[in-house]
């Protein structure tokens, strides 16, 4: 018989501590849909997605009902759409947007809540299609509801494509301007990466990479609340105990992910890809990464010591999780999306959590500057410079970094933007007043660092 204490522990984690499976993401390759004629391409894309993902949402709901574990999101990631654009005869922005609308329609038919992969990988240089796709991002995001976009502008192996960095500053500005009514919401669906991963199940940065197969199931777990509650029981103990407690909790959380991933893979008859060992917060009270850091003894997230606390957390999550799953991948680590984390929202409002501190934190956790609202009058060059800084951290430290900032039109420091739902509430955070324009306008490529020469 099962141990009653263990049963109660599991139920408590789900009922009271917000344990959930954050996402089941089905990766679908669209390589077979490439062709010269846009209408044929769109038809093939729509048919393939709606066929492969026909039962995704229902399967997710069935698993949720039988295992009693909430599965918050069911999503789709696809081959970078730039691949399709390159194969088109005379690609144009209009044709790209047409593909975006097709993705949106397919996502709505299948009932998923996001589709990712409106993507271009340009870490070294652009192809013709990639350049046009990037140009089309603002309109594509403004005219669709569920499409997410990402652009990889740098890698440890290739260096940083500073032309793309410059362009992405302009793209983000334009995306915000096209969605004035929703405070620049389009930018919440757009991520700029360095060292993007090919099997990420999380939005907005999910796409199905070049090395992936025809169709795959990737799962992202969550559970900051569970870690926080576990740490409450070891108040005052030294860091060895803290790390050990997080490891044990992460193991249990990840086992849930592994179970759900295997079950979904079996029921959908699609290979299981990876479990992403992640701590992804939601704006719900008690589901915050910042609260974990504060539980470790910081008065408020963002104060001195935050980077060290996050480093310990991130490492312990991986160490605990890695044994719980056969295949670990994706971004794997703690996320720090400001507007999606109740503790970070409070810390940003208070001014303790600043852009500079977040930048330091991105050196030791899984992604980057995420869901940060900046003043609407921030220049494109300043946004590009923020991207360049973050890409440099990723490039040199051989890790994924990302930037998802929202220059909310008309908003100034101190204002608060309500995105609603999982995307939460974003206090507008200040940026430096001094210009980086001359630096950004140089263009070209920052050479790959010494770290790239591993062979």
């Amino acid at each position, binding site marked *: 018989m099962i141990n*009653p204490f263990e*049963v109660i522990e599991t139920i408590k984690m789900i009922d009271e501590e917000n344990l959930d499976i954050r996402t089941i993401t089905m990766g679908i390759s669209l390589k077979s849909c490439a062709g010269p004629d846009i209408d044929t391409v769109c038809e093939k894309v729509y048919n393939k997605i709606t066929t492969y993902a026909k039962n995704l949402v229902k399967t997710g709901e069935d698993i949720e009902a039988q295992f009693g574990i909430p599965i918050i999101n069911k999503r789709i990631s696809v081959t970078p759409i730039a691949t399709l654009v390159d194969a088109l005869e005379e690609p144009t922005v209009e044709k790209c947007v047409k593909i975006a609308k097709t993705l949106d329609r397919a996502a709505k038919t299948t009932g998923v809540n996001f589709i990712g992969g409106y993507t271009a990988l340009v870490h070294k240089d652009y192809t013709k299609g990639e350049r046009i796709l990037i140009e089309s991002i603002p309109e594509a995001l403004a005219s669709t509801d569920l499409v997410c976009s990402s652009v990889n502008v740098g890698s440890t192996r290739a260096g940083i494509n500073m032309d793309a960095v410059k362009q992405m500053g302009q793209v983000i500005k334009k995306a915000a301007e096209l969605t004035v009514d929703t405070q620049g919401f389009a930018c919440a669906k757009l991520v700029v990466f360095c060292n993007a991963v090919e099997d990420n199940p999380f939005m907005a940065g999910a796409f199905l990479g070049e090395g992936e197969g025809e169709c795959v199931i990737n799962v992202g777990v969550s559970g900051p609340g569970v870690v926080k509650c576990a740490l409450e029981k070891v108040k005052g103990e030294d860091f060895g105990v803290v790390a050990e407690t997080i490891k044990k909790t992460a193991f249990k959380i990840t086992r849930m992910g592994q*179970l759900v991933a295997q079950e979904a893979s079996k029921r959908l008859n699609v290979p299981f890809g990876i479990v992403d060992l992640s701590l992804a917060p939601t704006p719900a009270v008690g589901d915050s990464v910042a609260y974990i850091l504060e539980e470790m003894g910081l008065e408020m997230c963002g104060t001195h010591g935050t980077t060290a606390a996050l480093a310990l957390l991130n490492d312990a999550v991986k160490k605990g999780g890695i044994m719980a799953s056969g295949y670990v991948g994706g971004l794997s680590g703690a996320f720090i999306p400001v507007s999606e984390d109740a503790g970070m929202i409070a810390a940003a409002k208070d001014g303790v959590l600043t852009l500079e501190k977040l930048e330091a934190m991105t050196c030791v956790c899984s992604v980057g500057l995420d869901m940060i609202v900046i003043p609407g009058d921030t220049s494109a060059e300043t946004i590009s410079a923020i991207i360049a800084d973050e890409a440099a951290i990723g490039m040199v430290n051989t890790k994924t970094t990302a930037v998802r900032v929202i220059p909310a039109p008309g908003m100034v420091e101190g204002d608060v933007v309500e995105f609603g739902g999982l995307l939460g509430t974003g206090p507008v955070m200040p940026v430096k007043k001094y210009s980086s324009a001359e630096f950004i306008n140089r263009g070209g490529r920052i050479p790959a660092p010494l770290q790239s020469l591993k062979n």
Partner: protein
Amino acid sequence: MKAVVTVIGKDQKGIIAKVSNILFENDVNILDISQTIMQDMFTMIMLVNMESDKVSFKELSQMLEKTGEEMGLSIHMQREEIFTSMHRI
């Protein structure tokens, strides 16, 4: 498939009777029962064999939850694997 039914809440008369009656009416066999008082809460854990033709997993689970609400108890039914995979290597 095996499932675990958990009942948590304030102790009262007829908890086991009610829950086991629902299971009986739906052709679900009880394999094991344990009950204890944990942190002042009545806690009952049942292992059941969920191979009934009469009712789907979801329907039975909703029936139990509803009964729980009526009695002021929290009743869950979940596949056994969620517990074994979380706590066993």
